[in-house]
């Protein structure tokens, strides 16, 4: 029988006629072993999936192939649980130049300039090694942007952690923040925004979602495609090592390299920066046919996805891959997750351009394969075929599961939250309060309205995040108009008179209580935040962070939350152009709060009209637009009073939301508002206090009508509400515009005095110096973090016992099947 071999002239070609099956790499288990001993389970394949692979191939896959199917059919790469829901997202619109499916989505700013953006999760790597986990997350999303031909201009990071009272959470948080800065600062892209939210549901499973935004000429989009038969395929950047390879192979105990290996990938931001500059320069030469980051599943996913998008095939000669370690096997090369590597397809004949550019930047480049038209991913190693799989089967026809979905919402049960909220242990064990009045009563016995204000301002989820942001370079590139801390960041776009407004939002508490409305609120709030600075929302990217999809309750959350997002996207005209799903997020065996995070991009036509969220002067009128709301359902105050998310998601009517946003944008555009800030976590009271704090300007609110439920009036998180500072002269025209837009508007009070005073005719709720509010708000996070100020060696301050415990937790809380392999042999989680 003829084996396909390398021709003497250095060209490779399949043997004519019937192709022979790939060999088993000596040392690898044989196909029969894999079948008999069910070794495929360790590679992430279920019995049914493995049988399907064998049936479609018409033979048993060898070890390399089984490994490749394992990663590409993992939840992470195939979206097999989420696909049926993601397809409902609106993904098109006149502004959309590139929707989902590429490395990043792209929208048009309207003047020949386009914006590429995407957000991605790095939750589990960050739980294992927070500094490197976060840093490599930033590096990965950066490469997704510049591979589209876009010059990255900004990062945002959406973070969720457990309570900072836990030493281990402080360790994770401090190092994640340092890691984000460590990579982003070095590559010279400003981190301009994001959020940090703290809740016990994230204790063992923090969420680290990084978003990158880049700018490119609308006509200059580059895709991750391997097209043009015969075109050469190159790997550029770092050498391939064994980092991130699924350590738990069947023989790992005997493996001589095992103790040298680590599931932790280490980022090299310096190399990442060189790779970015070199890639952009290379793309500018016009020689690039397609380019893609080697992210999760490295060479495997980049090659298969690029071939899939082009509808063709690709063959690679693995002994030509530059390696960092000796004796690497084809399996290891295909599955390595070494960072800072890219796969590039060049136009045949233009290789020299690439060589010149890469040598200028001191980067390594190696030709490792070529584009074919036979639809196969074919792998060679030392002239021997070691793998051959249809690309279609690997990518396009990967399994899709319609997982069981619970018919009704899972209750957020009290026992879920008993461990949390040491503040009110007695209350939280009493059970779920039934009425809103009972919650308000309980809250009032705990603290007065004034004490609640101070308490909420000091809550790390609300308090000033300067402790975080000052560790990020927020002003490099000298284009940051509005940095972190406001409703949205605003970044100037070079080569355009316009700017982009950017934000991330997503409230897990709301989604837990009402997945559909919570999903809609994530979109609505992001769009509202952009509108508050005067930007028109264009499109969004998302990170859908959920628990175990094999839990029907989690699938209910996922189905409903994505449905809610879809509704909001349609009404607010913000299609989804890119995104990422992260399942298997669990903490102490409990699924996390379902947390879809939305990253949204808007366009600012006139940068000189951008408005901030700080009161700017005394004697101005303060108004609130939008529906009145006094319900504490879903509020942070209710969570604090009861001990867990309580009630329902706050009220939201999408039509009203759209009207309010459109009114606010019109007011900013006509310069009729001097400061704007939306009502969100902590309600109206916190919004007003934040505006006082930011501006160092006081406020007097003396309501003319008594309020029946002061706490509800102050701390309701009812949606679609925006506070604005308006000059006396403009008040009348603003009122007229609000009436015309059919948006309710209430005059709250007037800025001035060094104090913030609030009350109704019955009672003055508080009279506090703004300086005191500033102090409480600004000192909370530094105080909470005082014991781990700065990046520390990984071995402390975590006690040994904490670490051991954490390992166990990880084993049961893996993000997806692919990562099961990293931490243990917990294959039972896959169906």
């Amino acid at each position, binding site marked *: 029988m003829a*084996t396909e071999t390398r021709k003497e002239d250095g060209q490779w070609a399949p043997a004519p006629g019937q192709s022979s099956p790939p*060999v088993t*790499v*000596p040392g690898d288990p044989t196909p029969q072993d894999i079948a008999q001993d069910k070794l495929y389970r360790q590679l992430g394949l279920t019995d049914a999936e493995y049988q399907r692979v064998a049936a479609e191939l018409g033979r048993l896959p060898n070890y390399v192939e089984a490994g490749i199917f394992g990663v590409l059919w993992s939840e992470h790469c195939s979206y097999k649980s989420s696909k049926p829901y993601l397809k409902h997202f609106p993904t098109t619109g006149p502004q959309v130049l590139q929707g989902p499916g590429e490395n990043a989505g792209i929208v048009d700013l309207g003047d020949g300039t386009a914006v590429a953006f995407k957000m991605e999760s790095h939750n589990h790597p960050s739980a294992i090694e927070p500094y490197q986990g976060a840093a490599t997350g930033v590096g990965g999303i950066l490469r997704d942007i510049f591979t589209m031909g876009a010059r990255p201009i900004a990062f945002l990071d959406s973070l969720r952690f457990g309570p900072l009272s836990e030493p281990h959470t402080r360790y994770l948080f401090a190092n994640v923040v340092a890691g984000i800065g460590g990579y982003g600062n070095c590559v010279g892209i400003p981190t301009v925004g994001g959020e940090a939210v703290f809740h016990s549901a994230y204790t063992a499973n923090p969420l680290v979602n990084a978003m990158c935004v880049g700018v490119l000429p609308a006509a200059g989009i580059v895709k991750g495609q391997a097209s043009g038969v015969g075109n050469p395929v190159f790997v550029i950047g770092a050498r391939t090592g064994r980092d991130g390879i699924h350590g738990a192979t069947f023989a790992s105990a005997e493996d001589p390299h095992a103790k040298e290996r680590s599931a932790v990938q280490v980022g090299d931001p310096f190399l990442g920066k060189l790779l970015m500059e070199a890639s952009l320069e290379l793309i500018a030469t016009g020689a690039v046919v397609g380019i893609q980051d080697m992210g999760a599943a490295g060479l495997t996913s980049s090659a298969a996805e690029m071939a899939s998008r082009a509808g063709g095939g690709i063959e690679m000669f693995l002994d030509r891959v530059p390696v960092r370690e*000796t*004796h690497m096997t084809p399996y290891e090369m295909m599955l390595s997750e070494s960072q800072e590597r890219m796969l590039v397809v060049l136009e045949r004949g233009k290789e020299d351009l690439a060589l010149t550019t890469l040598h200028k930047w001191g980067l390594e480049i190696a030709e490792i394969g070529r584009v074919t038209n036979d639809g196969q991913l074919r792998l060679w190693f030392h*002239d*021997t075929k070691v793998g051959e799989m249809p690309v279609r089967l690997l990518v396009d026809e990967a399994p899709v599961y319609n997982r069981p979905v619970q018919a009704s919402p899972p209750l957020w049960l009290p026992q879920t939250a008993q461990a949390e909220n040491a503040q009110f242990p007695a209350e939280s064990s009493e059970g779920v309060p039934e009425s809103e009045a009972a919650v308000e009563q309980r809250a009032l016995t705990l603290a007065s309205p004034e004490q609640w204000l101070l308490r909420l301002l000091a809550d790390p989820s609300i308090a000033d995040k300067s402790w975080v942001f000052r560790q990020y370079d927020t002003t490099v590139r000298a284009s940051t108009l509005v940095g972190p801390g406001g409703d949205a960041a605003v970044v100037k776009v070079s080569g355009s008179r316009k700017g982009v407004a950017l934000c991330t939002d997503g409230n897990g508490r709301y989604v837990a209580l009402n997945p559909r409305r919570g999903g809609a609120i994530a979109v609505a709030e992001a769009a509202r935040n952009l509108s508050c600075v005067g930007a028109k929302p264009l499109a969004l990217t998302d990170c859908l962070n959920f628990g175990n999809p094999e839990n029907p309750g989690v699938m209910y959350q996922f189905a409903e939350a994505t449905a809610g997002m879809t509704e909001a996207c349609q009404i607010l005209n913000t299609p989804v152009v890119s995104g990422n799903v992260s399942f298997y997020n669990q903490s102490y065996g409990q699924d996390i709060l379902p947390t879809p995070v939305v990253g949204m991009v808007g366009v600012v036509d006139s940068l000189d009209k951008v408005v901030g969220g700080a009161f700017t002067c005394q004697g101005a009128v303060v108004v609130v637009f939008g529906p009145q709301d006094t319900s504490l359902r879903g509020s942070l105050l209710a969570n604090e009073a009861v001990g867990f998310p309580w009630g329902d998601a706050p009220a939201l009517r999408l039509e009203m939301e759209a009207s309010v946003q459109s009114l606010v944008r019109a007011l900013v555009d006509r310069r009729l508002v001097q400061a704007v800030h939306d009502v969100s976590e902590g309600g109206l009271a916190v919004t007003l206090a934040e505006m006082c704090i930011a501006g160092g300007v006081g406020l007097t609110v003396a309501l003319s009508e008594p309020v029946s439920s002061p706490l509800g009036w102050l701390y309701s998180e009812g949606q679609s509400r925006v506070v604005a500072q308006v000059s006396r002269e403009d008040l009348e025209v603003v009122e007229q515009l609000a009436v015309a837009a059919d948006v309710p508007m209430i005059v709250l009070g007037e800025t001035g005095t060094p104090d913030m005073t609030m009350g109704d005719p019955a009672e003055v709720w508080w009279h506090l110096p703004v300086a005191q509010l500033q102090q409480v708000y600004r000192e909370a996070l530094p105080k909470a973090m005082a014991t781990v100020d700065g990046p520390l060696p990984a071995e402390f301050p975590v006690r040994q016992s904490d670490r051991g415990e954490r390992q166990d937790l990880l084993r049961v809380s893996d993000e997806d099947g692919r990562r099961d392999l990293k931490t243990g042999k917990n294959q039972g989680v896959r169906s």
Partner: protein
Amino acid sequence: MSNYVAKVQVQLKASVFDPQGHAVEQALHSLGHGGVRRVRMGKSMEVHLEAADEQSATAQVRQMCETVLCNPVMETFSFTLEIEKNGDEVDPVGQLAEIAQGRQNRT
């Protein structure tokens, strides 16, 4: 020519405040290691080099330290030099490749 490995240690000068060392020292105290009097962090590097003899290797490493590896404004250095053992590492993949080749030729 022989292969040497120089183990270079670079320390901040005693007069320079070492915040990392200070943080570690405090952490050790808080973990109950009350006897810890002082911690200084430094850098450790392994330089693998080829040289005619030990004297030449020492001279080369000293020059590297003086010009590049250490900044005399704030740091001091020291190093040790050893002859590097040639690893008798097994090369399973190389063998495998040969086996693969052999098998292929057989078919």
